[in-house]
């Protein structure tokens, strides 16, 4: 077959034009240390049959996390773009959408956060990547616990392996070293968000409470049925938080060591990573909300904070200090309560989230015993129930059995608050559950950042008080 004579000169010219265009595009897109253009740098998660077991077996919980991602994303987008009536937008419109619609009917799968936070993702892609990478670890740990084919030892080993894999991305991993709370609470932009938007802030903290708290029933439950019951009980406590916002929300940032003591003891590296992640969430909210950080500096200030959280040498505390932070910040009750143990009343902190306001001393607004809010045992039936309860709990064997039985504990936790039995019931002696009125103080340690946080050293883009 005859071929058409090639028109080489024209073809060459066109090809050169095309090559030139490609070159221009490539040059425009080439990574430069300068800044405004980030690399995509997405990485696949650690493969294995355990993946997606949580979604398959605990869909009602796993799907909530998809809604949580939306909540974080829309928050950052709104704080960055600052639409008119921002406070109303967040505290009313978005809050109502989240709590009355999205959480009720959460998405089946993870959402594409870029769609919800386009401006934020374009501004600080690295922050989004760091959060995504840590959320992936979160999800995979749940998958491991939800995989009934694994033995407890295999689960623990796999979680450590997942943590190792997570940490291989040094540029995107929160480090397993507890960072000082001063990074969150003592910067010139700190606490702006929680003071200005208490409902949305409480919602975010309730997200964080559930995200770490759900580990507890997964660990405490010995069988799938027990785990299911425990997860349902923890979810019930989360939904209870939604009933009277912001009063029912955590008053301080939930610390993993306090809300998930079993998980923190078993996997302290992952627990510390999650606390650092949650601190960083709050920090970014503050930076975006604070007028003291001009818009043109928000990217550099956020990136400086991210760098701080990848640094294992500065503004760190010991594991013992980290374990004691729960007490320093008001105790478990101020953080939303225990995930699976008996519920204790939540104290009302003077300033939501201000750890200094709720730590260490008797807190204003706290009540105990049969004081305000406790329904009286007036009826004969109430008194009978109370007597029965007290006799049961007075028996050490029954008390021990109840502590060992997650279903019983759940049933106790689910007793409606209106009953005088529940209201008068003293919390059973369980590890990590303390009276909120007198939080345990941490034994002072040398160089304890938690006792008196150091001011943050000079970081690019960060100032001091």
């Amino acid at each position, binding site marked *: *077959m*005859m*071929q*058409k004579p*090639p*028109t080489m000169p024209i*073809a060459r010219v*066109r*090809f050169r034009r*095309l*090559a030139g*265009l*490609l070159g221009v*595009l*490539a040059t*425009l*897109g*080439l*990574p430069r240390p300068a800044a*405004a*253009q*980030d*690399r*995509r*740098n*997405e*990485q*696949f*998660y*650690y*493969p*294995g*049959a355990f*993946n*997606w077991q949580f*979604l398959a077996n605990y869909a009602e919980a796993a799907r909530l996390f998809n809604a949580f991602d*939306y909540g974080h994303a829309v928050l950052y987008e709104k704080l960055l773009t600052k639409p008119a009536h921002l406070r109303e937008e967040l505290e009313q419109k978005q809050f109502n959408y989240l709590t009355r619609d999205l959480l009720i*009917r959460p*998405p*089946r*799968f*993870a*959402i*594409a956060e*870029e*769609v*919800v936070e*386009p*401006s934020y*993702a*374009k*501004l600080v*892609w690295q922050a989004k990547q760091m959060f995504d990478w840590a959320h992936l670890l979160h999800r995979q740990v749940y998958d491991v616990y939800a995989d009934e084919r694994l033995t407890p030892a295999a689960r623990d080993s796999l979680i450590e*392996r997942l943590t*190792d*894999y997570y940490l*291989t991305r040094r540029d995107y991993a929160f480090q397993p070293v507890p960072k000082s709370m001063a990074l969150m609470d003592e910067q010139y932009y700190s606490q702006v968000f929680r003071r200005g938007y208490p409902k949305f802030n409480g919602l975010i903290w309730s997200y964080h409470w559930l995200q770490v708290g759900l580990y507890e029933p997964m660990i405490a439950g010995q069988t799938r049925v027990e785990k299911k019951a425990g997860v349902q009980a923890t979810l019930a406590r989360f939904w209870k938080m939604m009933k009277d916002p912001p009063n029912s929300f955590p008053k301080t940032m939930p610390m993993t060591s306090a809300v998930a003591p079993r998980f923190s003891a078993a996997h302290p590296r992952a627990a510390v990573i999650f606390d650092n992640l949650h601190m960083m969430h709050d920090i970014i909210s503050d930076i975006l909300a604070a007028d003291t950080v001009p818009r043109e500096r928000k990217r550099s200030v956020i990136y400086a904070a991210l760098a701080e959280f990848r640094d294992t040498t500065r503004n760190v505390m010991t594991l013992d200090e980290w374990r004691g932070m729960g007490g320093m910040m008001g105790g478990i009750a101020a953080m939303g309560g225990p995930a699976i143990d008996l519920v204790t009343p939540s104290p009302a902190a003077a300033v939501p989230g201000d750890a200094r306001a709720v730590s260490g001393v008797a807190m204003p607004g706290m009540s105990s015993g049969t004081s305000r809010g406790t329904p009286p045992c007036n009826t004969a039936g109430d008194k009978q129930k109370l007597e029965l309860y007290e006799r049961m709990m007075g028996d050490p064997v029954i008390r021990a059995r109840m502590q060992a039985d997650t279903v019983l504990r759940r049933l106790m936790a689910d007793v409606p608050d209106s009953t005088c039995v529940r209201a008068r019931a003293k919390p059973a002696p369980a590890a990590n559950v303390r009276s909120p009125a007198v939080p345990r103080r941490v034994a002072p340690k040398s160089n304890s950042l938690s006792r008196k946080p150091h001011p943050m050293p000079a970081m690019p883009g960060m100032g001091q008080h």
Partner: protein
Amino acid sequence: MPLIRLITRCLRTSLPGLCLTLGLTRAAAAQIDYRNLDDDRPTTIEDAYPIERYAFEIQAPYRYERVAGGSELHLTVPELEYGLASNAQIGFNVPFASVRGRADVVGPDGSIQQIGSSRTGLAGLKVFGLYNFNTEGRLLPAVAIRGDVSFGVGALGGRGTRAALKAIATRSWGATRIHLNLARGFGSETGLGAADPLSRLTYGGAIDRTFLRQSMLLIGEIYARQSLAGAPTEVNVGVGVRYQWRTATVLDIGVSRRLRALGPDLALTIGLAHAFGVAGLMPGHR
């Protein structure tokens, strides 16, 4: 080769896509893979983002085309991709076609020729790589470059070897994205394959819309394609949907049609894409 045997076996079944993609049930992938527009899945225009580093993705599409004169083309292009490095992917595909009736193809002299009455066979072998330079920023779109080489392998694969370079840009506005593709093919212009050839020039754009709660992407595109030097340019439009069927599996469906004399009267495509990883290839694996 075991891979070829596997592909051949699957192609013999009535559900090749299912066979290929569900054969790897232990795998898992990102739940937002439905937003990853791949070449021909289901539209010709693709986005500028590669699959994640260390991820594999296997695709098993089926395509039906009816061209002027009533000829029909049945095509499946099993494809495997791998995230070789940060922001880079490589892959290959093995088109397998069945031409029934008299199919029009563009001959080396630019004229439209008719081939075969009913032929079935391998329609070449294609390898490719894609590199993404940046994620989208406040000013610049995401930009990527892709290179393809196709070899004339198989009964319908043609005789020559061709290559193509493609520039890709993606820009988003919330749930809406726009993608622009510009590709230039070069190499042998004799005896092109009957299916999925690397055209001399292809350019076009697509717009897509993400439906978050449904995990679904709706895409519309228009593109022009000139198969060989001097050949008439076909202009086609298409629409498609990508739907996150399972955590690791995306279902896509598309339909397209010509706007000029050349091109398909009707083209339908349906496919499955499944992402997975191999633990032994992960950093820090022990």
